[in-house]
């Protein structure tokens, strides 16, 4: 049986083009065939999770039933009552499958959990977000069937970008007018071709042609070497072009379906500081963490006056937020350290910006300092990516 990882090869794109054609014609005639979209979604889910990956397929089905029922129960409950303990319980229940999947390899020597499947974290983000918006009372009309469509929207199911329930619903219920849709088609084609350049040329160049050689050299050099520096930059480039390329495919495919999935990358290496970097890198994840963890924790801490000053509150929450992000990547020392380092960097960055504002007259600000800021940010980020890659761990074990 055919089985694909999304967007992996020309055959996948061929099938995708044929499958999208009726949707495109429909939208051009101002019609949306939801039944057809559902069939296509199921078809691509079977391609992704069927055949040799059927265990993942079963895990996905079980997971979907579990989350839909859970969120349905919570939203029904929320119509009449609003107890904090029930809300917290619902969030915990929603993330338990993900926690199990993330913890299993750490406990069982790298063995993968049976309930895991490609994309479980992205579905969990959507479920938790729906519970939180329901708690806040901004999401009143919950529809389990629509929620399921939102979860399994096939262009983004495996690795995001992470959309939001209310935003997705607006597009899903709506047929864009012809001008708007033609624009979307144009942008969609552009995204997919940029994706080819990113993923199949640049990520291939860095990740497949250059990286293994440099890694070999760095391993045989034992310890610090120029090859290791090379690994750092080449891996960072690979990581960016691979993930940004995938995201362009996912966003482009969504556009064809008249869904404006939010973008994930916006020239991140141009950032002048680490905060700007997180506004440009893996944006839907970073915004999810900002809106559903950072802001909520800050709100809680400030309201209950847990810390004396707003500055302390912000700093502690930065660290908590980014450490959770580290754990989300996986329970290994290098992912968690990666998160903590970014948390500390955000604290230092805030301190520096405040200091700079206070001493505006003494501290120069010009083209040169701006280039220097981009340079420092870029190198810090690349260093944390080297950590993130796990290569340092491989080197430690190889000794």
């Amino acid at each position, binding site marked *: 049986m055919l089985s694909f990882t999304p967007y992996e090869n020309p055959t996948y794109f061929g099938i995708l083009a044929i499958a999208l054609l009726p949707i495109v014609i429909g939208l051009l005639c101002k019609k949306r065939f939801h039944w057809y979209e559902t069939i296509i979604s199921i078809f691509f889910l079977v391609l992704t999770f069927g055949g040799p990956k059927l265990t993942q397929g079963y895990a996905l089905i079980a997971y979907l039933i579990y989350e839909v029922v859970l969120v349905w129960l919570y939203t029904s409950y929320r119509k009449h009552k609003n107890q904090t303990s029930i809300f917290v319980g619902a969030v915990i229940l929603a993330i338990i499958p993900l926690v199990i999947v993330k913890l299993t390899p750490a406990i069982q020597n790298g063995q993968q959990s049976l309930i895991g499947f490609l994309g479980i974290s992205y579905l969990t983000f959507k479920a938790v977000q729906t519970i*939180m*918006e329901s708690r*806040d*009372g*901004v*999401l009143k009309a919950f529809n389990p069937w629509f929620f399921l469509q939102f979860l399994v929207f096939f262009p983004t199911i495996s690795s995001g970008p992470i959309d939001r329930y209310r935003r997705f619903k607006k597009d899903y219920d709506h047929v864009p007018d012809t001008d708007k849709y033609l624009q979307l088609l144009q942008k969609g084609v552009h995204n997919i071709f940029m994706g080819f350049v990113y993923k199949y040329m640049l990520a291939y160049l860095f990740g497949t042609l250059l990286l293994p050689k440099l890694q070999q050299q760095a391993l045989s050099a034992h310890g610090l070497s120029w090859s290791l520096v090379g690994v750092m930059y080449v891996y960072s480039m690979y990581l960016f072009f691979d993930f940004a390329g995938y995201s362009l495919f996912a966003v482009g495919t969504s556009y064809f379906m008249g869904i404006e999935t939010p973008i994930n990358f916006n020239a991140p290496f141009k950032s002048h500081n680490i*905060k700007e970097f997180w506004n440009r890198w893996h944006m839907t994840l970073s915004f999810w963490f*900002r*809106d559903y963890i*950072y*802001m*909520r924790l*800050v*709100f809680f801490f*400030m*309201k209950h006056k847990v810390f004396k000053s*707003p500055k302390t*509150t*912000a700093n502690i929450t930065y660290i908590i937020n980014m450490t959770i992000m580290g754990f989300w990547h996986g329970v290994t020392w290098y992912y968690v350290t990666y998160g903590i380092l970014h948390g500390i960097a955000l604290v230092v960055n805030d301190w520096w*910006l405040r200091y700079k504002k206070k001493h505006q007259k003494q501290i120069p600000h010009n083209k040169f300092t701006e280039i220097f800021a981009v340079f420092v940010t870029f190198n810090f980020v690349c260093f944390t990516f080297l950590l993130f890659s796990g290569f340092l761990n491989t080197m430690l074990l190889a000794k």
Partner: protein
Amino acid sequence: MDTKTTVLNVLNDLTGTDVSGDLDGNLFDSGLLDSMGTVQLLLQLQSELGVDVPVSEFERSEWDTPNKIIARVEAMQN
């Protein structure tokens, strides 16, 4: 005090800058507001004007200038 004045006072306190000169200036782009500032803003609006804005309601693009914030708050009061 009317809503507009109260909101502007809160914003001036929060940002340490007089924002009344540029009511359509983007507060996030200029770095005057960030997530932290946003939460402080929501809490202040709650205590001073009694408008309860949940974090989910806060869609950045709808709250990014003083004028938009005033309009949102006025809409929520009615």
